[in-house]
């Protein structure tokens, strides 16, 4: 494992801590009715976002999933504007048009979270192809879950990326469940085997440890920048909370209690926190708390969009369709 400076360890911890506290506060806002539609919290899985994004340049690109707040925050999005987006406010990243599952910030290379499992894979490949063609050394990361490895479009995209040696990182966040279906009940063969079948270097890492993830991501990023093509990293992780906040009310049960206890016993926050001095850790915690407090205050005090503007941005060219009221 790479030797990191104290500052680098603190940065990784800060990202993990930010995502954790952001998600916990977001869940509270869902319960309070300030975020409608619910969210897919990524608590427990923060190390993947933190580790991968720490290996990236500011101009690198990512695409994300329905469980995407962590990726977006780790890539540098302003927590205030992410939370405002979740709350559907005009100050949100997407002006309140995307919500939790579509958060995007193109200035930061965040090409959008995506609500269709696996759909971001070919989009990432296309963006990576454009970057390769421009010769600017940028790489593109596709984050996806274990559910996506059974989507045909992901397998097609692995083939394209390998065939054309595209600078892509395929990062599988294996939290053991596609909604409620276990990997054992859903995945024949292995996740890395899918990459290997296309000649893509594929590794499995401890997805609870941001440093382990960072190590693997650096190797993959270096390979991609050097023209060596795509890599696949399977990050084994565990989701601490529900698939979707709907479950807080629906009370569906599909994970054994002892598994949950065991899964939670390896907490990325503690794993990375243990690498900081107590003083540094407390300092970062205080910084993050203040960031998240500001984000909540900003989101809740931001204006709601005007219903008159519901179809703004439908077309990049400004085309307006006919209204739906018979006028």
């Amino acid at each position, binding site marked *: 494992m790479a030797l990191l400076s104290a500052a680098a360890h603190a940065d990784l911890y800060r990202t993990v801590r930010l995502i954790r506290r952001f998600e916990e506060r977001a869940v509270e806002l869902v319960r309070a009715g300030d975020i409608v539609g619910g969210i897919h919290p990524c608590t427990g899985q923060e190390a993947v976002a933190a580790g991968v994004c720490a290996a990236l340049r500011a101009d690198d690109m990512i*695409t994300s999933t329905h469980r995407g707040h962590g990726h977006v925050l780790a890539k540098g999005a302003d927590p205030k504007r992410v939370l405002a987006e979740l709350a559907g406010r005009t100050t949100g990243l997407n002006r309140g048009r*995307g919500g939790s599952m579509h958060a995007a910030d193109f200035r930061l290379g965040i090409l*959008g979270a995506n609500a*269709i499992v696996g759909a971001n894979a*070919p989009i990432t490949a296309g963006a990576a192809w454009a970057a390769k*063609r421009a010769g600017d050394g940028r790489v593109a990361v596709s984050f996806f879950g274990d559910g996506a490895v059974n989507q045909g479009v992901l397998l*097609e*995209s692995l083939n394209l990326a390998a065939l054309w040696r595209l600078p892509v990182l395929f990062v599988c966040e294996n939290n053991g469940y596609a909604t409620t279906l276990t990997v054992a009940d859903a995945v024949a063969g292995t996740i890395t085997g899918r990459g290997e079948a296309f000649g893509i270097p594929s590794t499995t890492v401890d997805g609870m440890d941001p440093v382990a993830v960072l190590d693997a991501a650096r190797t993959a990023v270096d390979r991609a920048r050097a023209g060596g093509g795509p890599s696949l990293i399977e990050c084994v992780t565990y989701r601490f909370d529900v698939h979707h906040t709907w479950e807080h009310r629906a009370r569906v049960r599909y994970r054994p209690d002892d598994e949950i206890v065991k899964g939670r016993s390896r907490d990325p926050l503690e794993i990375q926190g243990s690498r900081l001095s107590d003083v540094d850790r407390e300092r970062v915690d205080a910084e993050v708390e203040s960031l998240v407090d500001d984000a909540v205050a900003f989101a809740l005090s931001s204006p709601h969009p005007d219903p008159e503007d519901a179809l703004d941005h439908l077309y990049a060219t400004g085309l307006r369709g006919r209204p739906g009221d018979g006028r």
Partner: protein
Amino acid sequence: MPWLSYRKALNRALGDELARDPAVFVLGEDVRVAVSNVTAGLLGRFGPERVLDTPLSEQAFTGFATGAALAGMRPVIEFQIPALLFLAFEQIVNQAHKFSLMTGGQTAVPVTYLVPGSGSRAGWAGQHSDHPYALFAHAGVKTVVPATPEDAYGLVVSAIRDDDPVVVFAPAGALDVRVDVDFATLAPVPLGVGRVHREGSDVTVVAIGHLVHDALAVADELAGEASVEVFDPRTVYPFDWDGLAGSVRRTGRLVVVDDANRTCGIAAEVLATAAERFDLSAPPARVTRPDGAVVPFAPALDRAVQPDRDQLATAIRKVLKD
């Protein structure tokens, strides 16, 4: 003046746009060899980096185009058969089309989806003969169905230059149309603007794609008994409602001929809009494929489900009599 075929017009539009804008590139199945003829010569002129042969992975290469567009390129995808759009529907309608709104206007997705040989090609049976332009119109994706070589050229050029996704259906029934044209007059045709091919005073026939030529033939046939105006919307979404309103104001009667299944088709939308907005002096009529049609293989059966000239003539006569 030289002859320009519809196929050659598509080819010329692609070549001109590739030459004009380095962000434009073409991808699809067998486009380097140019199995459809539409991409003939492009590999030699522009090289393999701008003319990409893809594996048979329609979902991936359609999504790939979205990603390339998000990163500043202007992809043109050739689909060999119209039914491949069903495979890529998620990537076009649910991804490319929705990015602008969902990102709050942060990005555009300028992809052109070109289907040379849409509709029946005679003898290609159930899975190669669809004409699903109404699906895209319903979803709000810009959709054009050019009838003539000069419009094919002009609409493809406009589609490529447009910042939104655009689907271009080039009907198989129009691919062999040729016109005698001065190439210097070829120009972009704006999306959403229809064209009156023939002026008339008794009835407006809205004809889509290759059926424009059938409508013109029927108008000639009926010249002794009726003055038929032939209106070609050229773009089915956004539709040129003002242009059609102007035509119907002159004629007061309306017939639509549309080579697609009847329920929820473009003909249905035209008639609904006419009921809401137009002052007709007789009930309108439409000639379409039957409800839910699957094109059968045998040639006589294939023809039986497509609108034909006799049906159109009958519909016109009925509307004139009412």
